[in-house]
């Protein structure tokens, strides 16, 4: 479980996050949603420790990140997997080498065991063996995301972060990636945090949703509570899509 309490973050005096508190539960897909520029990426980067917060507390199962020593942060990061928006695969390595990389760096296993684990992760994300020796530039965006997920879970992380996992993907591939993240979260009991503005993903896999607006947590709930939300800004965000408007109407007048 990751708990953030009263996080404040400013950039050159300009507030980016204002007094945000939230709990991200273990074994669930937690989603941070909001418009572009609302502060959701800043929040995620603060939680991971890529940005230092001005005040507040970020607890990974009781361990307070801002108070940790550099060595402790390094150890914590080995429990974290992350899928980046652009997958962030290493260009100079093949698909297999990308997945083997964190294992070679940190796993105290034999070369054979490392290879086996990498194969397991790649198979788990449904990548065919013929693509293992290809370079990232030689595979599609959807495949890159899958390799990114395989690399993120290689070290058996306790926490998985996904930054806009569906950006740049077609609807079908988006759904496959969403399902994969959902399955992996439940299969390995991971605390997953997804940063997204895709309402389809939210309705598909979101189990806990936090809506950020102008650096403030404006709404929090589950996907079942979305249609009953009374926050105007949140409703504007969700029902910007005609599909969701119709869904709401259907829910209100089923017959």
């Amino acid at each position, binding site marked *: 479980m990751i708990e953030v309490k009263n996080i404040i973050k400013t950039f050159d005096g300009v507030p980016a996050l204002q007094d945000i508190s939230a709990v991200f539960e273990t074994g669930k897909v937690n989603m941070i949603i909001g418009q572009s520029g609302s502060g959701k990426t800043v929040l995620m980067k603060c939680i*991971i420790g*890529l940005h230092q917060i001005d005040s507040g507390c970020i607890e990974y199962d009781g361990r307070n990140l801002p108070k940790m020593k550099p060595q402790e*942060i*390094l*150890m*914590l*990061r*080995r429990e*974290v*997997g*992350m899928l*980046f*928006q*652009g997958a*962030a*695969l*290493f*260009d100079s390595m093949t698909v297999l080498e990308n997945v083997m*990389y*964190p294992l*070679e*760096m*940190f796993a105290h296993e034999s070369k054979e065991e490392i290879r086996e684990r990498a194969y397991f992760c790649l198979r788990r994300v449904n990548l065919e063996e013929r693509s293992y020796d290809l370079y990232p530039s030689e595979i599609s965006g959807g495949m890159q995301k899958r390799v990114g997920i395989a690399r993120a879970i290689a*070290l058996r992380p306790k926490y998985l*972060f996904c930054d806009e996992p569906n950006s740049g993907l077609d609807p079908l591939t988006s759904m496959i990636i969403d399902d994969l993240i959902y399955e992996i979260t439940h299969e390995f009991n991971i605390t997953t945090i997804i940063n997204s503005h895709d309402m389809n993903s939210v309705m598909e896999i979101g189990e806990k949703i936090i809506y950020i607006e102008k650096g403030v947590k404006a709404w929090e709930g589950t996907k079942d509570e979305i249609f009953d939300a009374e926050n105007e800004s949140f409703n504007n965000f969700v029902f910007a899509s005609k599909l969701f408007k119709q869904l709401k109407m259907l829910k209100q007048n089923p017959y």
Partner: protein
Amino acid sequence: MNLFQETGKYFLLMKRVFVQPDRSKMFFRQFPKELDKLGLQSLPIVLIISVFIGAIMTIQTKLNTENPLLPTYSTGLVTRDTLLLEFSSTIMCLILAGKVGSNIASEIGTMRITEQIDALEIMGVNSANYLILPKIVAFVVMMPFLVIFSMAVGLIGGYLVGVFSDVITVADYLLGIQYAFNPFYVFYAMVKSLVFAFIISSVSSYYGYYAYGGALEVGKASTNAVVNSSILILFFNLLITNVMLG
């Protein structure tokens, strides 16, 4: 950002670079790749430039020293000393600052803007150490060889002038390049090459590592790397020359 902040940031980065690698085997896997990329792949340009400059220097020196009072071997001597003292150790390094410096800055800069460096950091890898240390060590190791190679090929360029033209005789040229040879000049050139190799690789890595934004910024980082490496090379050239030869 002012000069003091930039300098401080550079030294803080170097502090992160010069630590024990997380996994030595990963360092030794990267090291030969960098030797090849930064060193061996620079050989052709060093070869081409040195042979032509050696030849041109011989012709120009001969034309400017056509004085019966000057000994006939003076052309070879001047060519040799110019190559040893300045061309191969400094001008060649300035040229390599362009080739290698832009290569390093753009490679690391691209990794930065495509979040590959963030990915390393998230994994708990010291990205500065993993990415930059093999480059600096490899280039510092390779540079003296490149400089020696440049000296040798430059001298061969002058020799070819003697063989294929009547500007200078081969005998005069060979006598000149052997006359009053001071081995300290080679040592001086080696010292400069090591310092310049460190400057090129570390300054370029610094600009690449702190690149942000998009492709345009990577281009800017690459340009800044080359310009600032070149300025530092000229400054340290003056400093080292003053200390060692002054």
